[in-house]
């Protein structure tokens, strides 16, 4: 079996850990506490890595598998962190033949991460997506809600520079 651990190394601040413990202690006496705890934990960490799920399982006295089964059932829960700016590069046919693969590679190079990963500062996450129906603008990528079309590899740096806050 492939071990589906999060793609980035886990780290947490003492504040995050303290907040999680507060949430668990507040909720765990109530019936059906697991979902609210997971939802708040995801708010605290942005995702639910094995380390966080393990804490929750141990504190609630249930198995890690039970927690993981619930997490993977609901679309809202994520095992991987998302960046402040979510970059999606369209790898649909039209974009691909117009060079979106090159754009995708360039982004990986500039950001120094692979697809599905997050930059260490949490700013950008990168993923490939299916056709978004903007074939006339190919190749296309989106950064959160902004759409960039007719991309060339050379433009990538300038576009990323716009997201400098």
């Amino acid at each position, binding site marked *: 079996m492939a071990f589906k651990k999060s793609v980035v190394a886990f780290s947490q601040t003492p504040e995050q850990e303290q907040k999680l413990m507060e949430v668990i202690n507040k909720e765990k006496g109530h*019936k*059906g*506490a*697991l*979902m*609210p705890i*997971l*939802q708040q934990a995801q708010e605290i960490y942005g995702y639910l890595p094995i380390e966080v799920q393990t804490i929750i399982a141990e504190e609630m006295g249930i198995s890690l598998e039970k927690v993981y*089964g*619930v997490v993977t*059932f*609901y*679309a*809202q*829960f994520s095992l991987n962190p998302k960046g402040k700016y979510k970059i999606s590069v369209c790898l649909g*046919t*039209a*974009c691909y*033949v*117009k060079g979106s693969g090159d754009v995708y590679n360039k982004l990986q190079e500039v950001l120094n991460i692979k697809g599905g990963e997050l930059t260490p500062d949490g700013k950008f996450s990168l993923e490939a997506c299916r056709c978004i129906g903007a*074939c*006339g603008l*190919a190749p296309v990528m989106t950064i959160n809600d902004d759409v960039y079309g007719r991309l060339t590899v050379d433009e990538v740096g300038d576009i990323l520079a716009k997201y400098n806050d």
Partner: protein
Amino acid sequence: MMTVAELDAIKAKLHSQMMLRKGSEAGEDTYRKHVLVCGGTGCTSSGSMGIINKLNEELKKNGIENEVKVIKTGCFGLCALGPIMIVYPEGSFYSMVKEENIPEIVSEHLVKGNVVERLLYSETVTDSGIKSLNETNFYKKQHRVALRNCGVISPENIEEYIALDGYQALAKVLTQMTPEDVIQTILDSGLRGRGGGGFPTGKKWQLARNLVKDADQKYVCCNADEGDPGAFMDRSVLEGDPHVVIEAMAIAGYAIGATQGYIYVRAEYPIAVERLRIAIGQAREYGLLGDNILGTGFKFDLDLRLGAGAFVCGEETALMTSIEGNRGEPRPRPPFPAESGLFQKPTILNNVETYANVPQIILNGADWFASMGTEKSKGTKVFALGGKIHNTGLVEIPMGTTLREVIYEIGGGIPNGKEFKAAQTGGPSGGCIPAEHLDIPIDYDNLISIGSMMGSGGLIVMDENNCMVDIAKFFLEFTVDESCGKCTPCRIGTKRLYEMLEKITSGNATLEDLDKMEKLCYYIKNNSLCGLGQTAPNPVLSTLRYFKDEYLAHVVDKKCPAGVCQDLLTYKIVADKCKGCTACARKCPVGAISGTVKEPHSIDTTKCIKCGACMATCKFGAIVKE
């Protein structure tokens, strides 16, 4: 703690102010005018919060902030025209308002009293003057019961709700009625579940009251996990009138003998969640939730539970399993929730719209409610109109209204002079209704008899450019994604069904496959564990029933008549129309178009990826797909 007398006092105090907003003569307030701005999800996305800020700013600038009151309300229904703003008492309806229009509206209309006709919803402006909103086609045939406060009150102010009879039904129930009376009233009203199934609400309450005699705890739940693609009725009620749900749940609690309720609402509805939180807080503060409500000794409280992105949790047993903190997998029935539901205790679950009808039934009586609708479907139903229709948005109509009235009169018909092809109701559990049934009165039983269902109220209109096989495939893709994976027919069966549809739309299916597909549909319907699986084949079965010729065109002729299914299309350049401008060749992402300047071009079909970019570029209509 509040007494009934204090409740009445609040109502009396605010009533005349609220009447101003109803456009009534009797209305009066220290404010001259009320400006209502829609703060529902639709209008918020199109910028209504900016409008509110700008309004407040301009009012101050003009020194009339104490004369004109700005109120953020819930949804008015005409989402396509957002952001929406209404000025009372005159009832001027401004649509598609932009921030830059605000200074003009404030200085001209609010200061000088000259309505800015240019910015009004065009349908309200006629040669003989300005029509009231209620006379426009969109609103004229509507009858608002569940939505009666949406777009009228501020959802974040409990007193405005109280001013319009809010919590009076709860007061009446607690002081003048026995639980049995309440149940009898709901039974007599003929109210049926608005979430889709149409089970009689009173019957549900009666079972929960009587089935288990010695239960130490019972629960009242509200299903606000509205997940059908294209449906947003419940969201609008929660965003526009959250207290109606709280009041109705307290009434239900009294009727069945429960002291605790849960509202299971989608986390994807942040505005609804926030307003519910505020409303629950206010209700507790006013003593309308908690111990000893209205001094009657009745105890009831509510908690919110957020859904986490699983459509199947709209199924009642899955919803309860999810509240319990598990994977939201349905469990077999019996035992039914009325006997053993949430945490194995007797439980009732109703949807938001069902609850929204309850206080009005209590106040106006069962006969009033039963006077609306058809023989077996009483009252009104809210629909979310979408797809190929002019007035997309939210409408509430008496049961028995025909589809033709909804689509052509209220909805304003099909845009661009296209032909109506089908209306889809009931989302992934429903079916497609063809033109031949446009005059059927909408009610639970009629819709089922023509192979669809009421569902929660999504109504998607399709025109000649929609491929019915493709539509069926769209819904099946949704079901496959959302199947919980517990039982075999749904887990594997819907996946195989989807794959068969793919085979058809890619031109690889045989007539034998069609028979096999139909057999699989009936198998899934008959064998699945829960309602999601049992209704999943409906989009396929209903399109097979009414649009068999389209399936045959895909299977036998390998053609998609609507020109949707990519694999069955070829793009061609009509030589007579082509001017040789080369625009298409430059646009083509794969270099499939060739030709010399000022000569007709041609498309190499082996290279073409059918993205349609050329067709969108051509100014001469020289490119066709067939």
